[in-house]
C-alpha cells in the first residue's frame, strides 16, 4: 500500500512486479521509473532518449498500458505491474511482434525499438486489424531517426497478420 506518511527525502519502500517478477527496493521518490528499471533492476532494454516525454523510446507497459517511463516516478508504480521489452520475448523465443520486426527489417540501430515494441504490443491487443493510417497514428508518439518508419509499419502489419493466424498469450 502506498504510504501517506511524510517521507522527508527519506527512501520509499517500493514493491512492484516487473515482467512477472516481484521486486522490493527502497528508492528515492525522485527516481524515474526508466532509471529504476535500467539501473536498479538491470533491465537495460528500455532506453532513455529525451526525458521529456516526446520520443517514446522509454515506453513500457504499466498495468498493460503504454506509458512513458521517463514521466513516471518509480514510486508511482508501487503495487502495480510493469512489462518491459525483456518481458515480451527472448532471443530463443521471439514474441510474434519481435519476429515480424525481424522479417520486415523494422530495426536499424535498435535504440527506439523497445519503446516501439511495447507500444505495438498494446496497440495490436486493442486493434488487431489496423489500417496503415491507424498504425502510423499509433506510432506517432515514437520517434525513429534511422528507418523512416516504413519498415516499422510493414512489421506491424505483418505482426497483425501473423497474430490473427496464431493467437498469442498476453504479455506478463
Amino acid at each position, binding site marked *: 500500500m502506498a504510504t501517506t506518511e511524510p517521507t522527508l527525502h527519506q527512501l520509499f519502500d517500493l514493491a512492484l512486479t516487473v515482467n512477472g517478477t516481484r521486486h522490493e527496493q527502497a528508492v*528515492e521518490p*525522485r*527516481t524515474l521509473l526508466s532509471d529504476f528499471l*535500467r*539501473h536498479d533492476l*538491470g*533491465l*537495460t*532494454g*528500455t*532506453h*532513455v*532518449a*529525451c*526525458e*521529456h516525454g*516526446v*520520443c517514446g*523510446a522509454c515506453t513500457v507497459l504499466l498495468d498493460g498500458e503504454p506509458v512513458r517511463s521517463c514521466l513516471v516516478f518509480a514510486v508511482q508504480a508501487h503495487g502495480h505491474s510493469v512489462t*518491459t*521489452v*525483456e518481458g*515480451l*520475448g*527472448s*532471443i530463443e523465443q*521471439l514474441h510474434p511482434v*519481435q519476429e515480424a*520486426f*525481424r*522479417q520486415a*527489417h523494422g*530495426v*536499424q*540501430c*535498435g*535504440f*527506439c*525499438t*523497445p519503446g516501439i*515494441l511495447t507500444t505495438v504490443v498494446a496497440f495490436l491487443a486493442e486493434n488487431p486489424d489496423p489500417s*496503415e493510417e491507424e*498504425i*502510423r*497514428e499509433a*506510432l*506517432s*508518439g*515514437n*520517434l*525513429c*531517426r*534511422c*528507418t*523512416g*518508419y*516504413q*519498415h*516499422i*509499419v510493414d512489421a506491424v502489419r505483418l505482426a497483425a497478420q501473423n497474430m490473427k493466424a496464431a493467437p498469442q498469450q498476453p504479455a506478463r
Partner: protein
Amino acid sequence: MTKTLIGQRVLRNEDPRLLTGQAQFVDDVEIPGLLHAAFLRSDHAHARLLGLDVSAARERPGVVAVFTAEDMGADWEPGPPLVSPPPTAKDVLFHSRRQVPLVKDKIRHAGEAIAVVIAESRYIAEDAVEDIVVDLEPLEAVVDLEMAMQPDSPRVHDDLESNLAAHLFQKKGDYDAARKQADLVLQRRIVIDRGAAAAMENRGIVADWDEKSQHLTIWDTTQAPIPIRNGTAARLGLSENQVRVIAPFIGGGFGPKMMMFYSEELVIPWAAKKLKRPIKWIEDRRENFYATTQERGQIHHVEIALSRDGHILGLKDIFLHDTGAYDPYGLTIPLNTQCHAMGGYDIKNFTTEVSVVFTNKTLVTPVRGAGRPQGIYVIERMLDAAARELVIDPVEIRRRNLIPPDAFPYEHGIIDQAFSPLILDSGNYWAVMQKALEMIGYEEFVRDEQPRLRKEGKYVGIGIAPFIESTGVGPYEGARVTVEASGKIFVATGVGTQGQGHFTTFAQVVAEQLGVAPSDVRLVSGDTAEFHWGTGTFASRGAVVAGNAIHAAASIVRRKVLELASKQLDTPEDELELEGGRVRVADIPNRSISLAELANLANPLRGAVEPGTEPGLEATAYFGPRYGATAFGTHAMILEIDPETMMIDIKRYVTVEDCGTVLNPLILEGQIHGGVSLGIGNAYYEKLHFDENGQLLNASFADYLVPSATEMPRIEVGHVETRSPLNELGTKGVGEAGTIPVPALFAQAVENALADRGLEILESPLSPNRLYELWSRKEAR
C-alpha cells in the same frame, strides 16, 4: 554453384539481440564502483569567465570530485585537429582553433563545458552542478554569418583579426570568359539553415582505469574508436596497447559521433585515471542540442551562365559557411558543398569560393549529407530558375546538361574532401532520372492529372531532383577474417556500426567467398582490442571501404582454404566448391571436408610445418580506394498544399538509386527511407533557432521537429546498378543518399504547386509560416 549472397535480402544477424533488449549500448555498461558525471555548461554564448566557486559543490554529500580547467593543470589541452586543410590546394587560408576540455578564459558557445562534477549518481551530480557559482562577463554574441564578417563584429577568437576561420578558392576552366558567351546570366542569394542529427541515442562515455593492470577501457558512442584510442593514449602518456576503446551498439551516428575529442572525451578518461574510479557520463537530450555538433548553415551568392537552349556554360558560387565556435573538422563540409554544386552536370567552367566563419554557436561537423545537400540545393534551384526564364521544361533542361554515360571517368579538376581530384568514376545518369520519371508517372501527371486536380481547386505540385553523392572515400579500412576451429567465421574490422547492418552485409560478403551461411559469420567491429587500424564510419564509406577490405581478406582465406583442401582431397583447386561450410569436389558431393576440419589441420598442435607456413586459415587485408566512388540518384515527389494553411500532404515519393553493386536490398531500402526522413526534416520541419544572443530556442524534441510516422510518406525505391570500377565489389556508398536532394525537391514541388503565384524559394528549411510570408509578399506586390 551456390546462389550468390551479394544482393540478397538477408535478414539481419544482429536483430534478435536488439529486439529483445539484450544489445549493449554505452549507458548499459555497469561496473562496480561506477561514478557518474554531470557538466556545468554555459548559459551564455559569448562571455569571459572571471571566476568559478565549486566549494559548495564539493561539499555536497555524494560528490566525489569537481574539476575545472585549473584543476587539469598541465593536462589541459585543446583537442587535436581532426582534418587538416587540404595540402593539395594552394590559396588555402586556415586558422585552426579547436575545442577545449573545460573553459579556461572565454566561453564561445552556449553549452560549452565549464566544469565537471563526479558523484555517486547522476541525480546528485546534477544537484551539485547547481551549487557551482560562476562569475562571468557577458559579451556580445556573433550569430549571423554576414554580420560576423563585418569589420566591427565582436570576435569569437580574440587572437585572430576577424571571424574568418578559413578561405578556399577553387576553379575549373574560366567562368568569366564563359559568362561573356552567355545568353542568360542569373544571380541568386540562397540561405540554408542549421539542423541537428538528433540520433535517438545521446552521446556517452564510460572510462575505467585499472590501476593494477595500468589499463584504460573506454566505452564510447563514437563512430571512430581507433583514432579515439590513439589520441587518448597519447594525451594520457600511455601506450596505445594500454587503452582499449569499445564502440558497442550505437543508437544512430549520422555524423556527429564521428567528431572526435569532444570535451567530454577529453575530460572523462582523464578524470577516471586521476580518481582511479570508473566514471560514466551520459548526455541528456538538452545537452545534445548544445554540445553535439550540428550542420548546414551557409549563405550562397550564386551566378549561373547559360546558352539560350539551356546549356550551362558556367557556374560561380561564393559562399559563407558557419563552422560554429571552433573548426576541428577542417574544410570537409565546404569541400563537399563545392564538389556537389555542379551536381551531375557537365559544367566546364566553375568558380567556387568559400569563407568559413566562426560564430558563437555549437560546433559544426558533418551531419548525414555533410555539405552535399547544400551544393545540390544550389544547382537545382539555379536550374529551376533558368528553366523558368528560358521557358524550357525543368526535366528537359536537366537532360541537356547531365553528364553522358560515355564521359566517365569524368574529371572535374577541383579537389574533394579527401584532397584528391574530384573524379566521377562511373554512372548512367539519364537512365536513373528516366526511371524516376517513369515510376512517378511524371508525364501523365503533368499532362492529365495536375490540370484536372487544379480545376477542382487543388494545389498539387510535382518535383524531380537528380543528385550525385561522393562516397567511399579513403584513406583505408582493414579487416581480419578467420576460420575458427568450429568452422564458423570470425571477422574483425576497425570500422564501427550504428545501425546500418554491417553485421549482416559484411557477413554476406564473407559468406559469399567461403560458402557459409551469413548467420555463421560473427563480426566484431568497433573494438580496438580486436582490430586496431582504421579511421571510422563517415562519408558513406562503410560498405565500400571496409566491405572491400573484408572481401579482400575473405578472398585470401578462400585461397588458403582451397589450397589446403586441394591437398587433403587430392583434387585440383579448380574442381573444388565451397558450400554449406564444406569444400566439395564438384560433382562428387560425398568427397568433401568441412571448414572446421581444415581449420584444425591448419593449426596443428604437434608435428612440423613447412618453412614459411602461416598458421590457421586467416588473413588480414586493407583497402584504400584511389578516390571515392560517386553514386547518383533521383528523387521525385507529388505533394498537395493547402494554400490557406500552407500545410503539405505528400502524395507520392519516389527514389531511384544507383550505388553500384547492392549488397543487401533490404538494408539499402532502410538506409534510403531513413535518409529521406532526415531530408524531409531538413526540408520542412527541422530548424535550429538561435536568437541574436546565440541562445538556442528549441533545445528539446517538443520544439525541434523530427518527423514522426504521421509525417512520413511511403517511399518507393527503384534501382539502377552501374558497377564502380574502383573496387572489386563494384559498390558505391549509399548512407547519405536519402538526404541529399530533398530540400531542393521540396522547393521545386512547392513552387510547382503554387505556380499561379510565381513563388521563388531560395531558402531551406521551409515552414508553413515562411511559405505564408513568401506568398503574402507576392500578393502585396
